[in-house]
């Protein structure tokens, strides 16, 4: 294989994303997204679609903006002071940054799982029923218990915790905590689930369980996952997007990205030249 010279690894100014970034049946469409932290620009002119019920993985070296990009999809960036988003992000044709849009409703529709498991310091039951309770999704205790069991089953945690639902969620192991967070997210039946490096704090066995879970969930949910591990992207995703220094370099079906990358930078990254 020919080694690309250092020169070719530099990005040209007017870079255009290569590969298949657009979809015929999009769940979410992003066009010309720029994100700024105060004066510093973190994302440069990214356009991409997320297809219904697909798992799309976002990979790239540290600080490439993949997590920032993910957080613009449910407006979690609103909580960061000085963060500004330009461009259009639509879900089912509805602009997510429209002034009259309620973020509460948006975040109920686009759930999120974080890098470090962050169960609330409450019981397992309260963790999962938190969302349904605040959104008023259950009228009776029975409904609530039904949601609880369904969500925990979907997250593959039910068998492990059904006897200790009233014990604190913080007492679970790391992998269990992360699955609890997934159960918590799916309890409000979102349409899209965003996962921000969900396995980076977990050991390999727990990681395998989560990956299995993602595959199952993809039947019902649209999933966007940011990951540091190329193997993980290769294992769980249908499509892979490669980010570099805030720019979207390449989007292609996962198999193609890992076997025949179209862009030199992608190739350099997956062959381990940097990361």
């Amino acid at each position: 294989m020919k080694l690309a010279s250092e020169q070719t690894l530099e990005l040209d100014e007017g870079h255009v994303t290569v590969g298949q970034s657009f979809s015929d049946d999009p769940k979410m469409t992003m066009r010309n997204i720029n994100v700024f932290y105060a004066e510093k620009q973190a994302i440069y002119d990214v356009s991409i679609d997320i297809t219904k019920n697909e798992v799309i993985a976002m990979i790239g070296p540290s600080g490439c903006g993949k997590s920032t990009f993910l957080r613009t999809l449910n407006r979690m960036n609103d909580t960061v002071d000085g963060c500004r988003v330009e461009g259009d992000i639509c879900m089912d044709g509805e602009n997510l940054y429209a002034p009259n849009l309620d973020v509460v409703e948006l975040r109920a529709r686009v759930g999120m799982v974080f890098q470090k498991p962050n169960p609330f310091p409450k019981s397992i039951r309260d963790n999962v029923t938190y969302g349904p309770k605040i959104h008023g999704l259950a009228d009776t205790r029975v409904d609530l218990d039904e949601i609880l069991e369904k969500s925990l089953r979907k997250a593959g945690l039910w068998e492990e915790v059904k006897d200790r639902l009233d014990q604190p969620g913080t007492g679970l192991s790391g992998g269990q905590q992360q699955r609890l967070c997934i159960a918590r997210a799916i309890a409000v039946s979102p349409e899209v689930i965003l996962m921000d490096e969900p396995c980076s704090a977990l050991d390999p066995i727990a990681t395998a369980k989560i990956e299995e879970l993602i595959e199952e969930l993809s039947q019902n949910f649209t999933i966007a996952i940011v990951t540091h591990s190329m193997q993980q992207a290769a294992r769980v995703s249908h499509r892979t997007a490669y980010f570099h220094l805030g720019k979207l370099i390449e989007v292609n079906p996962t198999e193609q990205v890992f076997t025949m990358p179209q862009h030199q930078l992608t190739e350099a990254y997956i062959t381990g030249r940097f990361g």
Partner: protein
Amino acid sequence: MQATDLLLSLIVLGLFSFYWSRGRSLALANPLGGIRNLHSLPSYYGLHAALWCTLPATFLLGIWLIFDEIVINGMVMTDLSPELIPSDNASYNLILNKVANIANGILPREDQPSGLLDAADNMLSLNVVSQWSITLLIITLAMSGLAWSSHKLKVDFRARPAVERVMQNLLLACACVAIFTTLGIVFSVLFESIQFFRSVPIYDFIFGLEWSPQTAIREDQVGSSGSFGAIPLFVGTLLVSAVAMFIAVPIGLMSAIYLAEYASDGVRTYAKPALEVLAGIPTVVYGFFAALTVAPFLRDLGASVGLTISSESALAAGGVMGIMIIPFISSLADDVITAVPQSMRDGSLAMGATQSETIRKVVIPAALPGIVGGIMLAISRAIGETMIVVMAAGLAAKLTANPLESVTTVTVQIVTLLTGDQEFDSPKTLAAFALGLMLFTVTLLLNIFALHIVKKYREQYE
């Protein structure tokens, strides 16, 4: 010599020994080819000598200062001519004062009984003897310290470790001041309280419903019981503190939440220090404000709607105390709220919770132990607060739970009982120490418990 002169001469001696020993070590080192042949730097030899010269002597001087007067007084009183020997404690002190005043020339020597004059002369001569002997002792001790140190001074003497060992012990002694303070508090209040409980049974004190220390003094009869029941004071203290917490907790907590979770950087930079100004205002100023502005205002306000509000109402004192405690609660709450990890908030917000739902259902429950600890510290402060209640609350002990009436508190009674010239061991002054013991015990328990909770909380999120 006087104590200050002695101290000055010790300092001079110390400086002399420092330079002398340093010079000697240099003189030892020079023929060998410089100071690198010494074990330690020359100044350590100097320090060693200075420490040995001054430390034991200063220690002795301290002991003498403490016990000199006590011993001399005792000797004077035992040598007193028999017709003057006092019958009780009070007249013992009276005679002792008289003798001391004659000796110091404050009272004229004319027309005094010869027994007292003899005693005064005795005291004067004892003073002279004591001062001469201490001077001699101290100089001897200082010189022998210096001699010891210079005897040790050799090329291979390990001066630095020796000096550092002494320094470490000095540092340890400083750290132990905190322990001695606690011990001092415990012993001073406990000792006097035990004396008090000999004349007033502890049961009557803690469960008695009537407090009027004045009667006991008037009858001048130790143990006249029934007037040292502290329940009205406890109730008054609790009432005032409850009013204070009723104001301080919601306002302090809500402002902490607003500042930590909602306020923009601009508001935070100005509002936070502005609120903390309240914490820096001396309590006597709050007392003045409560007594001269708030209390009359409340009284007039009450009168205009047909309510009788005492001009020394618990409401005025407690309300102003509440204002004082606002910044205390808000800064403690601010600390614990900001210590809740951002990931908790993110988790909740990402579920679609509104910000207030996140705060009420996730942040506050997570911060609850810390907040409870902070509120307990605030309660302990309210109970122990003195000046506001001394100036704005009443003196009469009334058993009531009505905040519009005048009540008195434990701290008010301590101040009233102890200001002015009372005989020290009358039950009246001893009662103040018994109240002090109660106050110390309750606040100590609250503090230990609260600090423990807060510490555990901090560890949880570290």
